[in-house]
C-alpha cells in the first residue's frame, strides 16, 4: 500500500524537510511539540470521523485513513512555532476540525494546515510563524522544487503552483522595476524557502482547491495578488498564509462557475462523498441483514469504505 498514494510521497518529503530543518537549521523546534501536533491531528480525525459518520471508531485503523491528518500535522510542525505544547495541540485540533466543519457537500474548502496556522496566530497569544527560517540557499530551492514537482505530477495540480509563482513573481518583478532595485533584491525576495514550501505543498492541496483548471488558475492568481498586497503594503510577514485563508472560500465559487469532477486521492469514480457514504451505510445495513460475509461484492464494499476514509 505504501507509496502507491501520492500522499505517501508528501509524508516522506515533509518528514525529510522536518529532519533537515532540525539538523541543519537551528529552529526552535521541539520533538515533543511535533509529537503533540501529530497526535492531536490523528486523534481529531479519528474522533470526528467516527462522530460524523456514526461508525465505530475502532473500525478506523488503516494507515490510509491517517495520511491526511499526518500531512496536516507535518505541515503545522514545519511552519508553526509556539511557546506551549497546548497551542500546537489546539492548532492540530482546529486544523483537522476545519475539514469537518467548513465543507460544502463532499469538499472542505480550507487547507487544514493553513486554517490551523491562522487560528493559532489569532487565538493563541504564543504562536508565530518564522518566514525567514529556511534561508534562501539554492539547494533548498531545488530540493523543494524537485520534491514538490514529483508530488504535483502525481496529483496533477502543478498548474496552481505555476499560476501562483508566476503571478506573484511577475508582480514582484514589476514592483522591483518601478522601485529601481537591482535584480538581486528581487531574487532574494523570491528565493525564500518558506514561499516555495507554501507554493508547492499548501496551495496545491487538491482536496481543498478548485476542481477545474481555469478555476484553479484564477484562484491562485487571486492569492498571489493578495499576498503581494499584504506583504508590500501591509508589511505582513505571514502574508501568504493570510491570503490563502482569506480566499479559500472562493473555491466554492470557482467550482460553481467552472465545474469539474472533485479530486479523489485513490481513483474510485463516484459522484460525491455524501452519496458514497449513504451507499456505504445502505450496503452495510444490507450486509448485516443478509449476514453473508466474504462475498466478492462485500469485499469491494470494504475497499470502498477504506477509500472513503482516505477522502475525508
Amino acid at each position, binding site marked *: 500500500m505504501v507509496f502507491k498514494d501520492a500522499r505517501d510521497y508528501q509524508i516522506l518529503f515533509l518528514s525529510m524537510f522536518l529532519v533537515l530543518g532540525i539538523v541543519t537549521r537551528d529552529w526552535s523546534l521541539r520533538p515533543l511539540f511535533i509529537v503533540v501536533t501529530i497526535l492531536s491531528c490523528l486523534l481529531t480525525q479519528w474522533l470526528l470521523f467516527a462522530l460524523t459518520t456514526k461508525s465505530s471508531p475502532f473500525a478506523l485503523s488503516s494507515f490510509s485513513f491517517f495520511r491526511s491528518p499526518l500531512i496536516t500535522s507535518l505541515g503545522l510542525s514545519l511552519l508553526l512555532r509556539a*511557546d506551549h505544547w497546548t497551542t500546537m495541540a489546539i492548532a492540530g485540533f482546529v486544523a483537522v476540525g476545519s475539514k469537518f466543519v467548513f465543507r460544502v457537500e463532499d469538499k472542505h474548502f480550507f487547507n487544514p494546515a493553513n486554517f490551523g496556522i491562522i487560528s493559532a496566530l489569532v487565538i493563541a497569544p504564543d504562536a508565530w510563524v*518564522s518566514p*525567514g527560517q529556511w534561508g534562501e540557499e539554492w539547494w533548498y530551492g531545488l530540493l523543494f522544487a524537485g520534491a514538490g514537482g514529483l508530488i504535483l505530477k502525481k496529483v496533477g495540480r502543478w498548474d496552481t503552483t505555476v499560476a501562483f509563482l508566476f503571478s506573484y513573481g511577475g508582480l514582484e518583478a514589476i514592483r522591483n522595476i518601478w*522601485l*529601481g532595485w537591482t535584480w538581486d533584491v528581487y531574487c532574494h525576495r523570491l528565493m525564500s524557502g518558506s514561499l516555495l514550501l507554501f507554493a508547492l505543498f499548501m496551495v496545491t492541496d487538491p482536496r481543498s482547491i478548485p476542481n477545474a483548471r481555469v478555476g484553479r488558475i484564477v484562484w491562485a492568481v487571486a492569492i498571489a495578488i493578495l499576498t503581494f498586497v499584504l506583504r508590500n503594503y501591509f*508589511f505582513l510577514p505571514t502574508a501568504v498564509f493570510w491570503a490563502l485563508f482569506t480566499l479559500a472560500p472562493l473555491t466554492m465559487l470557482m467550482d460553481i462557475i467552472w465545474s469539474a469532477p472533485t479530486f479523489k486521492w485513490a481513483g474510485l469514480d463516484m459522484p460525491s462523498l455524501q452519496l458514497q457514504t449513504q451507499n456505504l451505510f445502505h450496503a452495510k445495513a444490507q450486509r448485516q441483514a443478509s449476514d453473508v460475509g466474504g462475498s466478492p461484492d462485500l469485499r469491494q464494499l470494504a475497499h470502498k469504505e477504506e477509500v472513503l476514509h482516505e477522502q475525508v
Partner: protein
Amino acid sequence: MNKFRYLFQNLFKSLVSSILAIVFFFLFTPGAWAFCGFYVSKADSKLYNKASQVILARSGDRTVLTMANDFQGDVKDFAMVVPVPTVLEKDQIKVAPPKIVERLDGFSAPRLVEYFDSNPCEENRYEDKVFAPPPAPVAESSARRRGARERDLGVTIEARYNVGEYEILILSAKESNGLETWLNRNGYKIPRGASNLLKPYIRQKMKFFVAKVNLDKFETSGYQNLRPLQMSYTSPRFMLPIRLGMVNATSEQDLLVYILSPKGQTEVTNYRTVKVPSNNNIPLFVKNEFGDFYKSMFQTAYTKEDKKVAFLEYAWDMSNCDPCSAEPLNPEELKEAGVFWLNGEQNPSFPGNPSIAPNNRRRPPRPIPTSDRVFISRLHVRYTRDKFPEDLMFQETSNQELFQGRYILQHPFTGEATCPAAKEYKNSLRKRFEQEAQTLAKLTNWNIQEIRKKMKITGQVSISWWQNVASWIGF
C-alpha cells in the same frame, strides 16, 4: 583596557585562594560606533562606516529608534541621511543619553564564565563562578557632512528642527536625481551610486531624515561626543534600512541591533536568524584574549553560514540575567532606551496623525497598551552588499526562549589531593584539556598546535571517536 585586565586578574587570584564564590564583571567599552544610514562627506577622504549600534523599542506599530553616535572625526564634518517611514514632528525627535547604548551593550554582550573544580577528594563538588568581560563589538567609523540650502528640485523640506546639538531636516523628494542634486548643492557630498539607492525609498514614499551638527550648540553643550539621536514613529514597517549604509562601505560592516519588545524574541524575516555558538568549554588562556576569541569565533561562524545570516547573541527578559554581565536596566534607563509601554509611563511622542503617515491607513491612535515586560534580542549582523541585497525586516514573536552567548572556563583543582580519586581526576584532566583545545580550534579556526602550546599540553591525548562526534554536534 590593560589596566582593567590587570585589576581583574589580581582580584581573581584572591578569589581562588579564598575559594569564595564571587561574581564580578567589567564592561568592555566599544571603540567606536557609527550610524546605520549612510554618511555623506564633504572631504574627499575615503569613506567607510563599519559598525553601527541601534536600539529599536517596538510595541504594536509604534517604534522608537535610537541610533548610537560615536563619530570620531571633526563634528563639523558630520552628517547623516536615514530614510524614515513618516514625517517626524519635533517632539518625535530627541537626543538620548550617550550611556544608554553602552548599558544595553554591556547587559547583553556575550560573556565568559568561569567555574572552579573542587577538591576531587571531597565528595561535594560545588562550583565557583566568575564572570569575565564581554567582547567589544568590532567597530570603526568615519563620516562627513556639509551645510544645506533650499532649492526646488522636487525636494520639499517637510520640517526643520533644532534638537540638542543637531540641526535636522525632514525631506521628501519626487525623484532621486533631484534629491541627489539638492544634497550636493547644499554641500552634502553624496557617494557615487547613492542616487540609484535613494530612488526605491522615494518611490515607497519614505522621507529622509537629514542631520548635521550645530557647532555653536555643540560647543555650549559641553559634551565631548555627539549624543545618540532618537526618533519615535508609528508605522507598520518594522525594518532597518541598511542598503544606504553600503554605498560608501568598502568591506563588511557590523551592525548591532538591540530590539526591545513587550512580547518576546524578535527575529529577522527576510534572512535567517541563527544563534551564535554558545555554552562551549574553552581553554583557560582565553581569559586574557576573550575579545580576540570572540572576534575569531564570530568570523568563523559567519563564514560557515555563508555570510548571509543574522546572529542572535542574546535573548532575555530584561528583569533579570544569569549570569549578569551588567546590572539590569532600571525603569528610568529603559525609558531612555525608548521603552514606552511600561506601566505608568506615557510617551507623548506618538501623535499618530494619519495625514502625515504614508502607508498609514490606520485608525485613530489607540492607547498604548502597558505592560511591565521588556524582552531584549541582540542581533549581530555582519553584512556586505552581495549577501544582503535587501534591507532588514523584523518581526516580534512570542518566543520566550532565553539565549545567551556564553563561554566557559573550567579551572582544574590545583591544591593538594592524594586520595585515589585524585589520580583518576588528574588523568581525566588531560582529556578534558585536549577536548577544550579542539573545541577552541573548531570555534575559532585557530591552529590547534598553537592552542596546545599555549595550554602547555604535553604529549598527545587520544580522544575517542565518539567524543569527537559529540564535540562536533555540540555536546
